[in-house]
């Protein structure tokens, strides 16, 4: 009787379609990834408006102030209140002046939570005005509906 030699064959599925798909997925996520999202803050949910368009040129010398729902202000990772914000703004202004620009060149970008009290936003503007800042941008989400 002839005995067949039993060669242990490695069962290998065809990996090509899977690798194709995985590379497609990687390409998709790579294209959509946006590292420049440092401007956003998890505590801020912006209100929306149909009229705004994303700016074609970025604002010069932006000072980004996040106003959370409870009125707390976040500037450069530090928390401030309307009373202590002056200190934070002065630091930012010092940087702008060191670059040879004046305070009037700076743009204060206010990213306030949609449910925050309007008075808190006004207080932020008032404190900034006291530091001779005069250009403000109220940031809102684009609403395409």
């Amino acid at each position, binding site marked *: 009787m002839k005995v067949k030699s039993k060669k242990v064959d490695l069962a290998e599925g065809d990996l090509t379609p899977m*690798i194709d798909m995985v590379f497609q997925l990687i390409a998709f996520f790579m294209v959509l*990834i946006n590292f420049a999202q440092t401007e956003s803050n998890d505590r801020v949910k912006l209100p929306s408006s149909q009229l705004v368009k*994303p700016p074609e040129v970025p604002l010069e010398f932006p000072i980004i102030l996040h106003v959370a729902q409870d009125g707390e202000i976040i500037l450069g990772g530090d928390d401030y209140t309307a009373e202590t914000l002056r200190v934070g703004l002065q630091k930012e202004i010092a940087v702008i002046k060191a670059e040879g620009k004046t305070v009037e060149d700076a743009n204060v970008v206010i990213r306030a939570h*949609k449910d925050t009290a*309007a008075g808190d936003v006004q207080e932020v503007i008032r404190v900034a005005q006291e530091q001779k800042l005069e250009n403000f941008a*109220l940031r809102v*989400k684009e609403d395409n509906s």
Partner: protein
Amino acid sequence: MKIRNRGEAEKSSLNMTSMIDVVFLLLIFFVMTFKIVELEGDFSVRMPLAGSDSMTMDPTDLPLKLRLQADENGKLTSMALNEISLGTDFDQLRANVVDLIGTTAPVEGEDGPEIEIDTDYNLRYEYVIRSITAVSGYKQGNEVVKLIEKIKFAKPRR
């Protein structure tokens, strides 16, 4: 002479395991860091501190006044444009602004009409943005018709 059977050509296969490991790691990294980007824009407000403006103010060129009132929960209860009560209807507000300034030749830039928003302290910011949207323009198809570009805030009410 013995001739080897060439029919069984050995399949040359690369070892894919390490590549797949790395590729999956990359995939997980991108999936975890993925965040849908919401498009954002700005309403520009130029507001120098009162009195510091060197421009001479024309007393006849007073800004329109928009008064926003809120209940204790921060919900809008009434709006008034130059003392004309408008309820809580933003379309009504827009129509009134159109009536007041006209749309035939919207003036842009520094000479355009100005509006001062006077809001209750606890009014939700969302309503302020909605009123700013209503007074600053409207959409006609894909084009934006601008109404008032100069917006300022009154002193905060405590």
